[in-house]
């Protein structure tokens, strides 16, 4: 008997995927920190890392299910459209001909020019026209996409975090605490989200941070209810009993066992919820209680051009409207495909 036993290095695919997803997630977080904090690598590099990280996360999420996800041409179109819009939003600074937030670059003489016209010095072509302040609509759309997307994604993620904590706590604690928490959730969900958001913005005033907070407050209850439902059905399963039988402390059961099993259904919900949040944010901005005038989102761009639409100067609100429609429709269609692909009820 020779001792010729080869021990293969661990190539457990699940473990590799887990590592890949963590690396991608870390890259995204690091890139965001560098971009928001203005530290580290140059912005262009951070943006590239952000994009690659996001694509990698999506690839990890869909591993082994590409065929199912890309069934039918609409899935390709929606994914390509969403990817394009995300690229445009991330690289808005590099791609747009003008910085619409920099008032020095704007010239009132270029105001309300139709699509295809050039500016006063003939150095710049306004492919989609300009608004009343001489702001290039194309640049406005690119920056507006970034504002709309980042506000909505940030609000959705934080609301999801709060909702997960509250929902799991309610399901785990049970009894009186659960009753009180769920009463609050029921109470909030009995009001339409636009009304709650309007109330909050009426009290807060305009501002990027304020609208994010308002959108978080509007959404958290929805996640709390969903997570509680999932967590309740999960706590009755045998693996939780097994974990309890091992004598694990409560926090380890909750964070190590319960939480990972409550997350997957949330991914699908949150995708569609980002689209809803974009709609809500743009509605609030359209009403003039959303983002500040200095950093217009798509909704505010539409509102700015709205007054001129009746006199035939359609481009100021029409093109931002098309961009809004495209991003909302693309997210919704991708969300629809995700639901069919990842739905735990269908696969189990």
């Amino acid at each position: 008997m020779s001792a010729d036993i080869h021990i293969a290095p661990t190539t457990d695919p699940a473990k590799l995927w887990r590592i890949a997803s963590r690396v991608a997630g870390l890259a995204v977080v690091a890139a965001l920190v560098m971009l928001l904090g203005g530290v580290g690598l140059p912005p262009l590099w951070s943006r590239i890392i952000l994009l690659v990280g996001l694509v990698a996360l999506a690839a990890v999420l869909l591993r082994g299910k590409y065929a199912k996800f890309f069934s039918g041409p609409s899935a390709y179109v929606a994914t390509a459209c969403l990817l394009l819009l995300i690229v445009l939003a991330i690289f808005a600074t590099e791609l747009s001909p003008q910085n619409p937030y920099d008032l020095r670059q704007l010239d009132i003489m270029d105001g309300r020019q139709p699509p295809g016209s050039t500016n006063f010095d003939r150095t710049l072509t306004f492919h989609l026209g300009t608004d009343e302040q001489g702001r290039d609509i194309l640049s406005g759309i690119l920056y507006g996409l970034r504002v709309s997307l980042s506000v909505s994604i940030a609000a959705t993620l934080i609301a999801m975090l709060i909702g997960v904590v509250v929902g799991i706590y309610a399901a785990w604690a049970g009894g009186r605490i659960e009753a009180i928490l769920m009463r609050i959730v029921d109470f909030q969900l009995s009001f339409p989200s636009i009304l709650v958001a309007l109330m909050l913005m009426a009290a807060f005033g305009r501002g990027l941070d304020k609208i994010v907070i308002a959108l978080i407050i509007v959404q958290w209850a929805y996640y709390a209810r969903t997570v509680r439902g999932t967590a309740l059905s999960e706590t009755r399963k045998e693996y939780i009993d097994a974990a309890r039988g091992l004598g694990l402390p409560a926090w380890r059961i909750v964070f190590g066992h319960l939480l990972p099993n409550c997350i997957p259904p949330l991914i699908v919900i949150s995708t569609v919820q980002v689209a809803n949040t974009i709609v809500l944010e743009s509605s609030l901005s359209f009403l003039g209680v959303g983002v500040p005038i200095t950093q217009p989102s798509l909704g505010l761009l539409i509102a700015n051009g709205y007054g001129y639409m009746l006199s035939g100067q359609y481009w100021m609100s029409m093109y931002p409207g098309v961009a809004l429609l495209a991003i909302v429709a693309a997210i919704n269609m991708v969300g629809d495909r995700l639901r069919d692909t990842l739905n735990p009820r269908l696969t189990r």
Partner: protein
Amino acid sequence: MLVFLLRRLAQSVFVLIAMMVVVFFGVYMIGNPVDILISPDATPAEIEETMARFGFDQPVYIQFLKFVGNALQGDLGRSFVHGEPAVQLILSYMPATLELALLGLIFSIAIGVPLGVYAGYKADRWQGRAIMTGSIFGFSLPNFWVGMLLILIFAVELRWLPSTGRGETVEVLGLRLSIFSSNGLQYMILPALTLALYKASLVTRLARAGTQEALMQDYVKFARAKGISETRILFVHVLKNIMIPIITVLGLELGSMIAFAVVTETVFAWPGMGKLLIDSITTLDRPVIVAYLMLTVLIFIIINFAVDVIYTLLDPRVRVKGEAA
């Protein structure tokens, strides 16, 4: 039973009180209203005087108790801009919003039910799938964007319908309504259609699910065996059976129609409560904002309470659970 309803009523009152606290501290305590009431070059003595006149010099809890006391008597302050009592002002704008919401409900049934029944009938064919994809758009399209598009098509390009405003009104039972005059109705069509779109997709989905279920019932088989035409089966036999849940759901959604009217009214410059709210937010007319919020909360609490009462009467399980708790 009675115990459950009393508990529910107590909860509603508690919610109302909580909302009063939130609204008061939210709207009243942020910034100093005096700053926008008097000219910037007023002397300190004048500021003092104005503060005292509005009671802003008193401690917070006294101000709050005064606010609650007045609110209980139906007095939520006087509008800075219009000079009228805020509650009265909002009530005078209310009929316009209500008739818009009502016409919106009618439209959403008129659009949603035929589409939904047809989609249910052709559930696995391309027609059914196309309608369902369309309903996704109805859910996800921003309300204001749809309104803008309708204005662009029907008012600016085709010039069929007026774009903004309210048109002629007729006095009915002391209320000024435009639903009864043909000119007023023309002005209502586009905003009501905009408001209806979201609910129409909801109705489409409900009607589709209902139709699919109803088509498997025995009475449909019997009607087919009798040789009744498919159209008649769908729009007489099936329709009668699916309308009850649809109307129930829509009745419950009336409240959210009023909330969504804020956006629609702003797009179409429709002089309703929602437009008043937005105008008040831009002019910092605090009493009107507070009054609008309190009134809307009251409407929603009444609707929710009524729903709970009806469910309790209809569903014994709710009753038993309520008594056990």
